[in-house]
């Protein structure tokens, strides 16, 4: 769909809401932000969605050892799950996509760890623990300093080395 058609349709739908809703089943229940809270865990690259709290690499180290190392290796070198610390300077088709050489945004680490990790106990970490683990991974990959604290303000400002390493495959489809 072209952008023009999309905008026209979006405008039509925006206008239609509240006008034609009576003709559709209209069985959706309105939901408030507070009722959504437990599910609303998207974190955007600009930091939208990041919760209160903070953490440092020093706080993250023991959590990593206990909850991450069994699958990702004692030093994050990889095991049954992928490598999280170090790795080759550049990814190739032979492998080697790492936090340091690939991820365009640091917010992705927070979002993914909070929603999916640890693999066998997702959503069991506190927000402070997720900040601490994020800081630990960024520091061990030499992207932030060892004592830098990650929170809702500092994390989105972290500049990842490969931020500009991507080409949008089909720009006309966005």
């Amino acid at each position, binding site marked *: 769909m072209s952008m023009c058609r999309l905008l026209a349709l979006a405008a039509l739908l*925006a206008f239609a809401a509240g006008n034609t809703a009576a003709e559709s089943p209209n069985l959706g229940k309105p939901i408030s932000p507070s009722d959504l809270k437990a599910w609303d865990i998207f974190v955007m690259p600009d930091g939208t969605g990041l919760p209160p709290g903070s953490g440092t690499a020093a706080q993250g180290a023991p959590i990593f050892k206990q909850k991450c190392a069994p699958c990702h290796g004692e030093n994050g070198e990889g095991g049954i799950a992928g490598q999280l610390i170090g790795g080759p300077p550049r990814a190739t088709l032979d492998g080697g996509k790492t936090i340091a050489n690939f991820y365009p945004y640091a917010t992705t680490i927070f979002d993914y760890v909070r929603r999916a990790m640890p693999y066998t106990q997702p959503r069991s970490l506190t927000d402070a623990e997720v900040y601490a683990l994020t800081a630990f991974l960024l520091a061990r990959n030499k992207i932030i300093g060892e004592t830098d604290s990650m929170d809702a303000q500092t994390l989105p400002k972290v500049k990842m080395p490969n931020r500009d390493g991507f080409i949008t495959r089909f720009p006309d489809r966005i």
Partner: protein
Amino acid sequence: MRNKHRNAVGKSPRHEFVAGNGLIDRRALLGSGAALAGALGSAGALTSAAAEPLADGPWSLEVGAAIPPYQVPSPFETSVVRTVDNPNNEPRNSRARTPHHLLKGIITPNGLHFTICHGGVPNIDPAQHRLVIHGLVKRPLEFTLEALERYPMVSRVGFVECGGNSAPLFSNVALQENVQALHGLASCSEWTGVLLSTLLEETGIDPKAKWMIAEGADSPHLSRSVPLAKGLDDAMVAMYQNGERIQPGQGYPMRLWLPGYEGNMNVKFLRRIMLAEEPAMTYYESRTYAQILPNGKAYRFYFLQEVKSFISRPSPGLTLKEPGIYEITGVAYSGTGRIARVMVSADGGKSWAQAALQEPVLPKAFTRFRMPWRWDGGPAVLQSRAFDEAGNFQPTRAEFVAARGETSKPTSVLGFPSQHFNAITSWAVDPKGEVKHVYV
């Protein structure tokens, strides 16, 4: 015998060869009984032995079994199964691949549809499942499955293909694997559900919205960002697969279905869609589904599953027992729309003939193609090349690799060096009738 046969073919006036190494006019298959009968006749004369006297089998002399409430295939078909790469549910991704070489038609049986799960298959109580649409909408709404059942539904046949399907063909050496291992992460079903645009009519859309971030109720809470344009075009909240509720591995009780788009984006166990101005840059779009290019950059937002085809029969493991007439068949599909034509070669791409397309030919769905072929017992390299209605067509592997790269050493067949491989696949037939995967 074989030489004599080969010589005889050259003289036969009944074959209508349309390309090198034995390809026969596709019209021989399409109701023109005389043409195929002629072709079969020459082979039949060579291979047929006299039939034995008939007798009743034991099953014809006793009462059969009770009809089960839910029928499963015959016990003689127990080898027609998916291959699973994490049978003990270790803490890693799990995949099951479709046995294309043992299937015909365009619809994948539900139990054989490919499945990838990133945290096992969740056991979701449909009565407690909720779908929430929020973010840049006028009215955030929550829907139950029971509520969605009352909405107007549509049914459409279409494929789902993992972005990493065919990834073993990025290996610098052709891996000796079958079509299930190489291309088994694509399947095709009739999906029934509510168009997402129907639900967005009720929530309304803030004009600033350009993306929607979808999330599943599985343990990784898998999430992907999808352009809102796709959501308003043909996206569906699918609840039924080939007439029955979608399978647990397909996202029970509901999944996002984005016809023609990368499988991972078709979020299963769909529980939430948030409209936003920007993509969330989730793990899967930031890392996994970003494809490294030879120049060191990487593609992102590939989304589209481009035009593709592969021959399912003959294929590795299906040895040809003797020279004679065979049907070359396979599936073609394109995320852009309908398949326009499929060309087949039996001589490694030196000459091509147009295959018959089995109706129905549907947009963004598997299309079955067929090509009659007389194998003379000599070496052959079988290839198919699909063209879609927008004019896109499959590159050769050499052309594809020049643009997208390959590994520096052979990979595991279970590995994913990159994604969105859609070049031509080649099967070599040797004089023993064995079929091997080759690069030409």
